[in-house]
């Protein structure tokens, strides 16, 4: 009876969020998928009849190339952000308490300026007549006619810049709880600093790294302002295509199909991570249960 009571309370407590997510997330997502199986009407609406025409159209080699580019730029952005965030979070976590708060504040400072304005600022920096180009020219690191703007490299650079705080914060949160005496122990046992960092610190904060990966990867798959402003004709991402199909072209079924593909691109890694974490939790629970069992049998001293 108390067990059933608890069940009921659990249901009651989660009902509002389940209701919210169903109405505003699950149903709209299914609608989007459904729209992709309709034809487009010439006036920009959605045709009545069901068809596979849109999906057939996506086999045009243009689209796999765009999907592929979106995935690799997102993956590279994620990798770049995590690699930069690790030493940064490590350094902050080792600071004195008051400095940690200051640094966390500084990391959040860019959010005081509009995202679009910040991306636009990069256009000026990367512009053929911009500061960075002149700097690289004077250092003999660039040819006079090399292009910094309007390519995949520019998208990658600006994406890493934009998403870096989302990687630092979860990794820092994990690093703050990390027991740094473990690194001393590793050094004490003969490990060089970097080996200790790699073998002890990174495994110790892996949950933070996983969160950072998701926090960067998911928005960068859907990113469209950055490629729109600093990307070129040959570096379109799936986000740009969805925008094009939705607004200039008014082809909603097409936009929906692309959205569905994007959703899959996000859900697959998410599912993989969820599975991994669940497995770890289960193993941990098993380990704890097992050791408790040992204790109860009086085996442990």
């Amino acid at each position: 009876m108390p067990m059933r009571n608890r069940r009921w309370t659990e249901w009651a407590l989660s009902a509002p969020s389940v209701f919210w997510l169903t109405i505003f997330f699950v149903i709209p997502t299914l609608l989007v998928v459904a729209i992709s199986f309709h034809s487009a009407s010439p006036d920009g609406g959605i045709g009545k009849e069901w068809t596979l025409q849109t999906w057939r159209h996506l086999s045009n080699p243009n689209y796999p190339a765009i999907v592929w580019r979106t995935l690799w730029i997102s993956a590279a952005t994620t990798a770049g952000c995590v690699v930069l965030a690790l030493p940064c979070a490590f350094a902050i976590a080792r600071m004195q308490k008051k400095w940690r708060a200051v640094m966390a504040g500084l990391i959040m400072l860019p959010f005081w300026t509009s995202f679009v304005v910040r991306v636009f600022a990069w256009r000026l920096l990367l512009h053929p007549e911009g500061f960075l180009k002149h700097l690289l020219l004077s250092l003999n690191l660039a040819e006079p006619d090399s292009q910094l703007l309007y390519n995949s490299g520019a998208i990658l650079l600006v994406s890493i810049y934009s998403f870096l705080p989302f990687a630092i914060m979860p990794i820092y949160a994990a690093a703050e709880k990390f027991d740094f005496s473990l690194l001393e122990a590793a050094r004490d046992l003969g490990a060089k600093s970097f080996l200790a960092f790699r073998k002890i610190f990174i495994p110790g904060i892996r949950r933070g790294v996983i969160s950072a990966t998701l926090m960067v990867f998911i928005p960068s798959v859907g990113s469209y302002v950055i490629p729109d402003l600093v990307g070129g004709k040959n570096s379109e991402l799936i986000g740009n295509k969805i925008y094009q199909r939705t607004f200039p072209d008014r082809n909603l079924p097409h936009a929906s199909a692309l959205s569905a593909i994007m959703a899959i691109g996000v859900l697959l890694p998410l599912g993989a991570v969820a599975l991994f974490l669940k497995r770890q939790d289960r193993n941990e629970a098993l380990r704890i249960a097992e050791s408790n069992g040992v204790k109860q049998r009086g085996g442990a001293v």
Partner: protein
Amino acid sequence: MSDFLVFDSVTKRFGALTAVDAVTLGIRKGEFFSLLGPSGCGKTTLLRMLGGFETPDSGRIYLDGRDITDLPPNLRRVHTIFQNYALFPNMTVWDNIAFSLRVARYSKSEIRKNVDGMLELIKMADHAYKYPSQISGGQKQRVAIARALVDRPQVLLLDEPLAALDLKLRQHMLLELDIIHDQVGITFVYVTHDQGEAMSLSDRIAVMNQGHIEQLDPPAKIYEAPRSGFVAAFIGDTNFFEGTVTGIEGDYCKLAVKDFADILCFNDKSISAGSQVHLSVRPEKIRVTTTPPPPEKGSRINVFRCKVTDIVYQGTYTKFWVLSGAHRIAAIKPHSRFLLGQAAITWGDEVYCWWHPDDGYMLEQFTAEDANLVQMPPVGYSAPKPPTATPVA
């Protein structure tokens, strides 16, 4: 220098605080050496400099004739047992122990042989594939020891390794540490604030206070012949008497103590008449009896009439605080035969307190703060009065 491990006037400052003040000290090979002192005395800083986690501001550290002062921790054959053990939570017991061997790129078969050998030594072969979260505090302790000993370091540092364990386990681990030290023959440097641990394990103890070493001696000498008031009061319990030498009688001298009777004590420092000295007398050397002591042949005894002010019953002994003149004296009476009918000494009793002149020890050094280290029941505390019946209205 013949010592295996040498600190040569090592100083370490943290801002305005001098944690270690020109410490010079030599540790012998294979020795079980303890650094004992209250928290903040600099013992842990000394240990961390030995491990390579702090660099001295001045002075050098030599290990086996080699200057190791500026070597990073990973290049010293010195391993540390951390207070919280610092076992790697993402590795099994086996992998934890194998860590240093893997880092040093030993061959697979050698790693296996050494790790299995260590597991045998700490009797944990059955737990090799468990994670640190699955084993008990005492087991973690043993794994930390195995992990630090597996690649045969020159010195093992132990930073209050038993502080996190409960009493029974601590006593058990003390024995085990002793056995392991005998088996591996590696030099152990043990940091603790617990005098019991230091006394029972060490070959020699360095008692530290405010960044310097007060005394470096074997345990019995530290206890029985403390050099300073600090050592006498920090190790065990004691009574201090301050007096002026009024006369020399053979090997003994007579002290005139203010507000107290004259005390006779053994004059091992060849002090001349007129000088001011401090005497330390351990409570267990002082007898408390209701009858005067039996006369002893050929020697004189210090005997005082006192009044019992406090009693603490401890099972194996009873501790008394008695008052004589303005002096409060602590004395310990061991329990031997227990007789139910016997009238025990109780609060307010007039008793005889006495000790042999050989049992008082003259201190070389004494400061007023040392007297504060002696634990006393609050002044003015009086005997519990028998309950008086309150008339019911």
